[in-house]
C-alpha cells in the first residue's frame, strides 16, 4: 500500500495518485478547502423497517422464467444464468420442475418410511432424521430436459432459455447410507424406490450403489431449510444424477432386488436412439459447459476488453479443463477455473478477451476428470435419435455480429 501521508497535496500528485487514493486525499485539509463535498445521503431505513428475512434490493430484478403447460400442475421455471455470479444459485432462483404442483407439507407431520429388503422396517420423523450425523455438500442439480428445446435447432433467446434447468447449491442432510446401514440392507438388495409425497407420488428407481455412495436425505439448501419447490421438508439428493431422480417431498424408500421401470424412467427420461432402441437408466448428467457472459440476448458495446465467463459441470466427476474458442471453433484456449472446483458441482470459468469488432462465434467445451469431453451436436446426433432430446450436453455456440448483437446459433 502507498504511504498516503508522504504525498504532497498539489495538483500533480493528485492526478498521479489516481482513483485509489483520491478518497484519502480529500480528507487532507488543503484540498477540503478547494472541493465541495458531495452531500451525504443522510440516514437510511431503520432496523425496525428492515425485514426479519432479508429482501434483495428493489433494483435487483433477475427472475426465474416460468414454463407452463395447461393446468400449470406440470411445469417448471428456469434459472437466469445470464445474471448469476460465481457458482452458487440463490435458492429463490433455483430452477424447478413439478409433476403435480408444489405441495404444502407441515414438517411436524412429515414422515419417511423405509421398508423392503432391510433388517428393520422403520418410519422416521423429521426430528429423528435431524438427529443423525449430517453432511453438507455443494452440488449442481440439472434437469435431464435442460436444453431439450435446442435439440432440433437453436431456439432459446438467451442462456436462461437454453440452459436454465441447472442450478447449484450447498445441500445439507443425512447421508442415505447411514440410514440404510442403521436398518441393515439384505445382500440381494440392488435398488431402491424413492417416492415423493406430492399429488403425483413421483417415483424413481435408484441403484443401491448410488444410495450407498453419496446420496443425501437433504433438509437444507444454502444454509436454511429447503424451499417448498425444492422439496420441503425432505428431498433425496443423488449428486450428478438427472434432476428427476432427486425426488422431492420424499416420504418413502423401498428396498428391492430389481428396478420398478416406473413410467417416468421408461418414457420421457429414457433416450430413444437412431436405431429405434431406447437407452434406459441413463442417470448421469455428463460433462457440459456454457458461456453465460457474453451470451445470447446481450450486446457488446464496441470493440475492446470483455471477460468471457461461464459455468461447467459434470455428473461423473470434477471439471478438469474448460477450453474456449473465439474464432468459430478453429482454435481453443484454456479458461481459468475459479476455486473451489468440486466434484458434481458448478465450476465458474473465466477468460480475458479483447474483441476486435469482427463478426465471430464463441463457444466453450469442458473435460472432466474421467477424460470425458463435451460433444458437438453432430457427435450427439449419432448417439441419440430425432426425438432423443433428453441429456443434451452439446457445445453451445453464441454468434457475435459486427454490431455486437449476440444470438444463439448452431454453427
Amino acid at each position, binding site marked *: 500500500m502507498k504511504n498516503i501521508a508522504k504525498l504532497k497535496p498539489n495538483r500533480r500528485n493528485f492526478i498521479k495518485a489516481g482513483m485509489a487514493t483520491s478518497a484519502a486525499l480529500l480528507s487532507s485539509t488543503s484540498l477540503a478547502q478547494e472541493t465541495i463535498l458531495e452531500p451525504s445521503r443522510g440516514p437510511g431505513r431503520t432496523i425496525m423497517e428492515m425485514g426479519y428475512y432479508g429482501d434483495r434490493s428493489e433494483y435487483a430484478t433477475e427472475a426465474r422464467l416460468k414454463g407452463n403447460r395447461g393446468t400449470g400442475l406440470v411445469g417448471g421455471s428456469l434459472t437466469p444464468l445470464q445474471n448469476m455470479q460465481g457458482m452458487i444459485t440463490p435458492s429463490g432462483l433455483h430452477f424447478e420442475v413439478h409433476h403435480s404442483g408444489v405441495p404444502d407439507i407441515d414438517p411436524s407431520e412429515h414422515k419417511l418410511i423405509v421398508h423392503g429388503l432391510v433388517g428393520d422396517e422403520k418410519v422416521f420423523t423429521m426430528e429423528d432424521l435431524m438427529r443423525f450425523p449430517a453432511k453438507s455438500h455443494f452440488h449442481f442439480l440439472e434437469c435431464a430436459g435442460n436444453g431439450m428445446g435446442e435439440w432440433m435447432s437453436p431456439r432459446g433467446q438467451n442462456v436462461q432459455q437454453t440452459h436454465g434447468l441447472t442450478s447449484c447449491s450447498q445441500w445439507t442432510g443425512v447421508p442415505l447410507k447411514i440410514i440404510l446401514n442403521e436398518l441393515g440392507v439384505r445382500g440381494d438388495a440392488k435398488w431402491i424406490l424413492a417416492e415423493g409425497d406430492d399429488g403425483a407420488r413421483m*417415483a424413481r428407481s435408484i441403484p443401491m450403489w448410488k444410495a450407498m455412495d453419496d446420496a443425501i436425505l437433504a433438509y437444507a439448501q444454502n444454509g436454511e431449510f429447503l424451499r417448498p419447490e425444492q422439496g420441503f421438508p425432505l428431498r433425496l439428493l443423488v449428486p450428478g444424477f438427472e434432476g428427476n431422480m432427486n425426488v422431492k417431498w420424499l416420504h418413502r424408500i423401498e428396498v428391492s432386488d430389481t428396478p420398478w*421401470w416406473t413410467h417416468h424412467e421408461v418414457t420421457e427420461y429414457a433416450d*430413444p436412439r437412431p436405431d429405434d432402441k431406447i437407452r434406459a437408466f441413463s442417470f448421469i448428467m455428463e460433462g457440459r459447459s456454457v458461456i453465460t457472459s457474453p451470451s445470447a440476448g446481450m450486446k457488446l458495446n464496441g470493440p475492446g476488453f470483455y471477460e468471457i465467463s461461464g459455468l461447467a459441470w459434470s455428473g461423473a466427476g470434477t471439471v478438469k479443463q474448460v477450453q474456449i474458442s473465439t474464432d468459430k471453433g478453429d482454435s481453443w484456449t484454456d479458461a481459468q477455473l475459479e476455486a473451489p472446483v468440486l466434484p458434481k458441482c458448478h465450476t465458474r470459468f473465466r477468460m480475458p478477451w479483447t474483441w476486435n469488432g469482427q463478426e465471430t462465434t464463441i463457444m466453450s467445451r469442458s473435460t472432466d476428470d474421467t477424460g470425458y469431453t463435451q460433444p458437438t451436436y453432430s457427435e450427439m446426433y449419432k448417439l441419440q435419435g430425432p426425438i432423443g432430446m433428453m441429456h443434451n450436453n452439446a457445445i453451445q455456440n453464441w454468434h457475435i455480429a459486427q454490431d455486437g448483437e449476440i444470438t444463439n446459433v448452431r454453427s
Partner: protein
Amino acid sequence: MFARNTKIVITLAAVAASISLSAIYKATAAEKYGFGRSLGEAEIARYDSDIHTNGKGLPSGSGNVELGRETFELQCALCHGENLEGVPQMGARSMHEGRRDIEKLPYASSLFDFIRRSMPLTDPGSLSSEETYGLVAYLLNETGVTDNPNLTLDAKSLADIKMPNRSNFIIDPASRFTAEDLEDK
C-alpha cells in the same frame, strides 16, 4: 420443531463419541442410533402402492375394456382427448407422440403403477382397482398391444402381458447394470 436445543446437541455428541469408539470393534446392535419407530406390516401396506414388473403389488379385483372406456371418457378424455391425441390446453401430449407411446412401454406394470399413483392429474389416488385395471385394458387395446374388445385384466393376467417393445430397451452401462441383471425373476 426444527430448533435444536442444547439437550439434543449434547445427546448427539455422546452418541457420536460412542460410535467412533465402538467402530473399531465388529458391528454390534448397540452401535445403532436407534432413532425412528418400527413399522408393522399393516402400516407399510397403506403406503406400499408400487407395482413391480413381475406383478408384485397388484391389487385384487379386475376390470375390462368396457369399464376402462367409460372411465376414460368420464375422467381422462378432457385432457387426453377421445383418441389419446392429447389436449394441449390441458397440458397432455399425445399418447402416440413417440416419447409417451403406451405401446412402447416395457411392462404393463409401468402403466398400471403410473395411472394409480398419478392420474387423473387433478384427483390422483381416486381410482378404484377395478377402474385402473379397466383403464389399462382399454389403453392397451386402443394402442394395439392387445386386440380383444372383451379383455379383462387382473393381477395375474396383467403380469402375464408381454409388451412388444421390451426387447428394444438397452441399459446404459454407466448404470453398472446389464440387461441380464435386470431380467425378470
